[in-house]
């Protein structure tokens, strides 16, 4: 851990927090203009040939996300400097962190679907790198791979959806799709597009049954969990659903899928959260709950319901990133994240404790905290639903009650109770670490006291961005005595009950989870081992390391496919007549034939190689005879070098013994295959001559070679000028082959030494 490759001063690393700070300030100055003048657009051509341009459009929804990303990013940067102090990969950590932040900002502002997809995949890749940051641990690597595969598969589904949308509507801009929403909703491919978009969103936002990667992603360093896996990246799916709400939303399929998936995710993960003892795992499961609630409310159509989703998005980002940072501080200072090893830390770390209390009360939805506003509006939204409001209300109440209990557990089990003797010397972390949770918790209180303000400046513009409706919902501290208030009281009462019984519930859940016949995690593992098993199988069949097998497969594939195509499609057969040839040519051919026989008959490897060289040289002379000096020269040189290289190898091998010769039957098979390949190639070449190719290209090269390219040797001019892109590709192949061969030789040598 103390092996620092480069020493970075903490202050240099801390100064990188200026980037999120700058972005935050920029986004904050945009709030007013966006409210009065509508979205701000930037347009940069990127791949004009494919009609892909980096079109960015910043509206209320983008702004809400930008502010969350940059503010949490700022605190996480400051926090990480101390959290990872002295870590030997601290440089790449900050690179990934800021690269992730920029991709996430691109994701929430991109208007072009292809650009959005690219940013979407970039966040997946940086998430992979950051989860696998402690890559020495097998568990980290496994979790990183799992997150990559699950969200990456969702990303591919998203790409398919975007392509379908582009083909149907002819536009690649999301803003352009909104105008064609009604045609899209009645289009026969609507179902396919919806399923693909939902797959993308559900994998990214870890909805059931793709939720399993998120708790495993807790292998990442804690600031990363706070940033990516609670405040920003996992909300990418929520963003996508909100963005496509005016385009694809409002259908029964949309509403039922989102509401049911969201409800299942919210309730099941809230229950599972009680069965955890690791702080980060508890927080991960409650993050799933929050994501489920947001998905559920985005399924709704009423303004209240969508406002609830956006309000809760902000509420959750504030308290959950604070709680994750708290878990990191506790872990950093005490060395444990297990509930049973913690307790009584309030006096030891007062700042962290205060921040945690504020965050937990917000999570539990106590009045005067922002979470209370979020909860009220949630119940209002659920009651305003036209489609099965009972389910939405009961899911929301249950999930909220369970979250209240979790909040209680976090406060009491970590900070109250008897201090553990081994934590006697524990102190609060540095100001850079606890300032994040404290400020985020403080914002929660400020927002909780001034909800009208937040609603006016942040939430309403965000909802307006994807929901055209004249009515808008005011956020208020006190709505009067009505149904939401009653439900709130019910929630807190139920939450307290859950809290009082959390120990028996914990044991019960532990036992139940152990007895489950199969978990989604195991399904994933089974799928992965199936794929690798298939890979092993095809490797044993096709790539067993025997050159003979490789050649056999390649040649037989070629003979069957090319032969089939030729016979069935082309139907041009060569005329079998011998051209007039001079004695010199006959002699050359006789020499070549004699060498062929020598190659086949000899058991001395060196002789065989030399005979092969004679064949090549003979062919080169033939080329020369027919007026192709360039080809002849190259052929001659290649032949020479081949003989040289192969003879170096063969000199080190023993001569073939009779006993090592293959069996009669096998030799017969080889002879048949070699013969048919040779005959096929020859016939194809002869057939090509009969096709009468057009000579326009030749004429073009003859005319332009000297005038345009200053060269008299047409072959060379083609190679380095007219077709130089091909040549560039070829030298890349040559270089790759040379380096790969070098690696193989070195590997062999180190193996035998």
């Amino acid at each position: 851990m103390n092996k620092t490759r480069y020493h970075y001063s903490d202050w240099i690393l801390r100064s990188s927090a200026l980037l999120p700070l700058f972005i935050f300030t920029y986004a904050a100055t945009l709030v007013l203009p966006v409210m009065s003048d509508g979205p701000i657009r930037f347009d940069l051509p990127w791949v004009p040939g494919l009609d892909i341009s980096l079109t960015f459009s910043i509206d209320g929804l983008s702004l809400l996300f930008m502010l969350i990303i940059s503010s949490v990013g700022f605190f996480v940067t400051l926090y990480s400097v101390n959290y990872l102090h002295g870590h030997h990969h601290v440089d790449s950590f900050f690179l990934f962190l800021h690269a992730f932040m920029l991709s996430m900002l691109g994701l929430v502002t991109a208007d072009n679907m292809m650009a959005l997809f690219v940013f979407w995949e970039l966040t997946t890749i940086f998430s992979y790198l950051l989860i696998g940051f402690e890559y020495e641990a097998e568990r980290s690597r496994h979790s990183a791979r799992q997150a990559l595969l699950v969200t990456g598969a969702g990303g591919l589904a998203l790409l398919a959806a975007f392509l379908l949308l582009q083909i149907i509507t002819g536009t690649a801009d999301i803003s352009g799709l909104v105008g064609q929403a009604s045609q899209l909703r009645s289009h026969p491919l609507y179902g396919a597009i919806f399923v693909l978009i939902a797959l993308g969103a559900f994998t990214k936002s870890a909805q059931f049954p793709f939720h399993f990667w998120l708790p495993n992603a807790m292998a990442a360093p804690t600031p990363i969990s706070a940033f990516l896996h609670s405040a920003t990246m996992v909300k990418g799916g929520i963003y996508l659903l909100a963005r496509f709400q005016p385009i694809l939303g409002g259908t029964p399929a949309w509403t039922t899928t989102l509401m049911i998936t969201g409800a299942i995710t919210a309730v099941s993960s809230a229950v599972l959260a009680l069965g955890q003892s690791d702080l980060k795992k508890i927080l991960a499961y409650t993050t799933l709950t929050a994501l489920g609630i947001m998905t559920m409310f985005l399924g709704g159509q009423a303004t209240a319901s969508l406002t609830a989703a956006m309000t809760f998005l902000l509420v959750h980002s504030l308290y959950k990133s604070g709680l994750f940072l708290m878990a990191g501080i506790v872990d950093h200072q005490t060395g444990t994240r297990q509930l049973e090893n913690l307790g009584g830390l309030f006096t030891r770390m007062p700042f962290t404790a205060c921040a945690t209390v504020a965050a937990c009360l917000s999570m539990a939805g106590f009045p005067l905290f922002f979470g209370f506003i979020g909860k009220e509006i949630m119940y209002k939204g659920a009651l305003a639903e036209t489609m099965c409001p009972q389910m939405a209300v009961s899911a929301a109440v249950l999930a909220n009650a369970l979250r209240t209990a979790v909040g209680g557990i976090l406060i009491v089990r970590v900070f109250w109770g008897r201090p553990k003797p081994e934590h006697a010397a524990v102190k609060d972390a540095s100001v850079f670490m606890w300032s994040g949770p404290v400020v985020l918790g403080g914002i929660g209180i400020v927002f909780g006291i001034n909800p009208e303000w937040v609603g006016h400046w942040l939430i309403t513009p965000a909802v307006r961005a994807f929901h055209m409706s004249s009515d808008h919902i005011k956020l208020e501290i006190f709505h009067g005595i009505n149904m939401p208030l009653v439900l709130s009281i019910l929630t807190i009462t139920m939450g307290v009950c859950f809290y009082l019984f959390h120990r028996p519930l914990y044991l019960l859940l532990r036992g139940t989870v152990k007895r489950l016949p199969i978990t989604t995690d195991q399904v994933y593992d089974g799928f992965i081992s199936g794929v690798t098993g298939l890979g092993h199988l095809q490797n044993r069949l096709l790539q067993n390391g025997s050159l003979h097998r490789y050649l056999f497969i390649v040649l037989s594939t070629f003979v069957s496919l090319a032969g089939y195509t030729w016979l069935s499609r082309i139907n041009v057969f060569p005329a079998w007549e011998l051209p007039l040839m001079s004695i010199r040519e006959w002699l050359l051919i006789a020499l070549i034939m004699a060498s062929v026989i020598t190659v086949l008959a000899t058991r001395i490897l060196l002789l065989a190689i030399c005979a092969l060289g004679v064949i090549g040289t003979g062919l080169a002379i033939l080329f020369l005879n027919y007026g192709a000096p360039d080809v002849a020269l190259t052929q001659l040189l290649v032949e020479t070098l081949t003989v040289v290289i192969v003879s170096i190898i063969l000199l080190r091998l023993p001569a073939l013994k009779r006993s090592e010769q293959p069996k009669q039957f096998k030799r017969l098979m080889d002879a048949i295959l070699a013969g048919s390949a040779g005959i096929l190639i020859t016939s194809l070449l002869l057939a090509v001559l009969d096709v009468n190719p057009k000579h326009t290209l030749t004429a073009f090269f003859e005319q332009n070679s000297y005038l345009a390219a200053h060269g008299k040797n047409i072959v060379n001019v083609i190679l380095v000028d007219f077709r130089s892109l091909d040549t560039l590709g070829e030298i890349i192949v040559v270089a790759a082959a040379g380096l790969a061969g070098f690696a193989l030789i070195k590997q062999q040598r180190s193996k035998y030494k």
Partner: protein
Amino acid sequence: MMHSLILRASTRLLVSLILMFSVYLLIRGHNAPGGGFSAALVSGTAFFLYAVAEGADSVRQALRFDTRNLIVIGMLLALASGLTGLAAGQPFLTGLWWTLTLGHDYEIVLGTPLFFDIGVYLTVLGSILTLILALEES
């Protein structure tokens, strides 16, 4: 490596001749048979001959370059000659030509394709040498 006096003596002469021939092939390639690829093969044989006579280490010392760096330099040169066209506002890899007038009626036409060809030469030579020297040492 072979310990043969005749081979070593004749190698000294031959290697320089072959190398000169390879440069000649490279430069004349635009107007007559030759070109970067053939020239690289020729110089590859020269270095191989040297390796057989004096050992692979002598070749490495004589080259002063890691053969793998030759590949990199060659590819960069080919790429750069392509990017020059791009920088001049034309499609990637477009050939650009300059005419240098020397004296009264003698002029040399220089163009990016020449540098492209030198890039090909270095890449191919680097690949061949990387392989041959590794084999010779194993």
